[in-house]
């Protein structure tokens, strides 16, 4: 029994040691600045980000960046809780659409004073992207890319259906009827186990497609400019949603596909609409002969959904300027080396990179870089994500599952947007 007592005691000691262990300060770092960097990148994105970090660490011997990967689902929750518990990273990824919440919660450091010391030149960024990170005239993030929604197609199948032109581009009349006809032809000409369009039945990607079509129709976000009430252009919203729903009722899409990426990758679909981040993945897929194109402007205006990855400096009580400058230097360096990041598929945030030979020799990207200026970013509302999840995705999903008519879905959406803004 005595031995068990000892055992128990030693565990208590162990627990206490753990307690001490977690409050220990950073070890001596012989003049090196060590930066903790939080990311949410998976798969191809993750590989290229690691490559960037490695190169940076090699070329900047006095700064050491350590990547901490957090899963997508929990990323922002963990970021907020960690920062508020004083355990936040030195530099972190944020989507521009999430930035308003982080800025308004006081979680992101304004960068203007530090920018000079880290040689950040705001003028060198794509101005459409840059606009999305300015709040009250102050810069809160370094954008490293934009990742719009585009269209991927399987050349083999398009050719089989006679829908591929001499340059390997899809033959598609950019009108609603032309778009539907395109898929109808695919459905008719292709084997029955190949879906004309790979898409999930709901979720983020449907929301993105809706946003793109709604913007093409001339819709301008779902919140008013004062960010206090909903401003849904209902007629356009309804038109976009009904159009998407018809793609499902016409059976162009494999219903409730659990993994639509896999469907396209395994060549069980002719077309797929998703973000540019898939390019890197398709390139590495053996035997997949694919093409990438901007989402056709079927409703007239060139516009699409897109977001942008940015790097922010989370606040901390004992902010150390040396660290902050180092972090900003890193962020700027990542933006300057957008051609590496572009390998994953993203469009670099600095136009100068588009002229670099390293970028030019990458295939596919040039087919869609023009889209960067057509991305319609969401307004600077704190509620962007809750509006997206609770007002849009939830009601769109219900519509695709036939629980709501498109009319009801749009009604509900407007109501929920108002509720959320007034909460």
């Amino acid at each position: 029994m005595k031995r068990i007592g000892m055992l128990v005691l030693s565990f208590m000691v162990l627990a206490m040691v753990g307690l001490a262990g977690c409050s220990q300060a950073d070890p001596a770092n012989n003049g090196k600045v060590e930066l903790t960097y939080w990311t949410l990148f998976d798969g191809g994105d993750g590989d290229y980000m690691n490559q960037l970090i490695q190169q940076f660490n090699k070329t900047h011997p006095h700064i050491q960046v350590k990547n901490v990967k957090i899963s997508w689902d929990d990323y922002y929750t963990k970021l907020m809780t960690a920062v508020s518990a004083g355990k936040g990273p030195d530099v972190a990824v944020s989507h521009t659409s999430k930035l308003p919440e982080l800025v308004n919660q006081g979680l992101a450091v304004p960068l203007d004073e530090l920018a000079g010391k880290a040689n950040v030149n705001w003028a060198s960024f794509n101005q459409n992207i840059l606009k999305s990170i300015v709040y009250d005239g102050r810069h809160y993030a370094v954008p490293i890319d934009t990742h719009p929604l585009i269209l991927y197609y399987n050349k083999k199948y398009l050719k089989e259906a006679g829908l591929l032109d001499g340059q390997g581009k899809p033959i598609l009349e950019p009108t609603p009827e032309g778009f539907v006809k395109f898929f109808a032809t695919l459905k008719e000409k292709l084997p029955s186990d190949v879906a004309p369009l790979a898409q999930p039945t709901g979720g983020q990607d449907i929301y993105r497609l809706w946003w793109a079509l709604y913007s093409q129709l001339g819709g301008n976000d779902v919140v008013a400019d004062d960010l206090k009430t909903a401003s849904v252009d209902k007629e356009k919203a309804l038109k976009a949603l009904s159009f998407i729903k018809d793609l499902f009722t016409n059976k162009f899409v494999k219903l409730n596909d659990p993994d639509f990426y896999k469907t396209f990758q395994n060549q069980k679909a002719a077309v797929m609409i998703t973000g540019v981040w898939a390019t890197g993945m398709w390139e590495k897929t053996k035997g997949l002969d694919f093409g990438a194109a901007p989402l056709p402007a079927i409703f007239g205006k060139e516009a699409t959904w897109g977001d942008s990855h940015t790097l922010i400096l989370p606040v901390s009580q004992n902010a150390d300027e040396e660290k902050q400058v180092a972090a900003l230097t890193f962020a700027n360096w990542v933006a300057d080396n957008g051609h590496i990041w572009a390998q994953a598929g993203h469009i670099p945030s600095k136009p100068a990179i588009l002229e670099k030979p390293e970028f030019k020799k990458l295939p596919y990207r040039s087919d869609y870089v023009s889209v960067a200026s057509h991305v319609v970013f969401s307004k600077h509302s704190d509620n962007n994500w809750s509006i997206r999840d609770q007002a849009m995705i939830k009601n769109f999903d219900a519509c695709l599952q036939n629980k709501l008519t498109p009319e009801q879905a749009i009604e509900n959406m407007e109501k929920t947007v108002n509720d959320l803004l007034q909460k």
Partner: protein
Amino acid sequence: MNGKREGMFAFLFLLPFFVAYVLFTLLPMLKGLQMSLYKWTLIAKLHFVGLDQYVQIMRDPEFWNALWNTTYFVILSTPTMIVLALGLALVANRNSRLKTFYRSVFFLPSVLSVTVISYVGLFMFRPYTGLVNNVLKWLHVLPENKEIFWLTDETNAWLVLVAVTLWWTVGINMILYLSALQDIPDSMYEAARLDGATDRQLFWYITLPSLRPITSTILLLQLIASYKVFAQIWLITKGGPLNQTRPIIQYIYEEGFKNNNLGYAAAMSYVLFLILLILSLIHMKWNQRAEGGTPA
């Protein structure tokens, strides 16, 4: 030994437990009350709002929806759990060479972690490529070109969640029944048999009545455990489709941590706490009446 020294000793023996108990059980109770009266985010305590959040809860359709979902899960899973646990215990209690085998097999899933059982369930019930649909097609229950969408249809999703939960946790209740079965003295059966009772009569007149106390215990534990359901639903359906399987704990979690609204989440927790408290008290009263004595 004098009383003073013994008192001192008792104090020292109780101290470690009570430090932890106060810090991590009693203090959170009070803190929760405070938080529920404030607008409170992950970052900071904002302003005092009094009982506003409780009023808001009463009018929040999502809250009632989540509470109903949890209750629905309780209604679906509790009776099936009890019947299945008893059935399995009867199987494992038969005198056969496979006795321990059955017991192990039925109990094995209980030691697996919720993550494992959830992902196994999730992948098994996938459409197109999942095991379940494949097996149904192989048995020709499901035509080759049809799919059952287990997780995107509300009724099916509940079926999956209840089935996975039963599979995962029934083992523990089976063990409880098993030990209760073994506590029934053989002499009772022998005496009844001498009186010419059939197997069926033995079951209805001896086995079942003897199991009444343990059934009542299992019932309460099961009710409370089911009201706290979260992880497997979170991992399998994320509360979907369309929040139709979202339990109350998930709503509390999402409101607190995803929507950055800890105050409201704390207020909802208090409402949940109240419900669970009432359940326990009802059970205590019921037990008292049944046993005519003090609660165990």
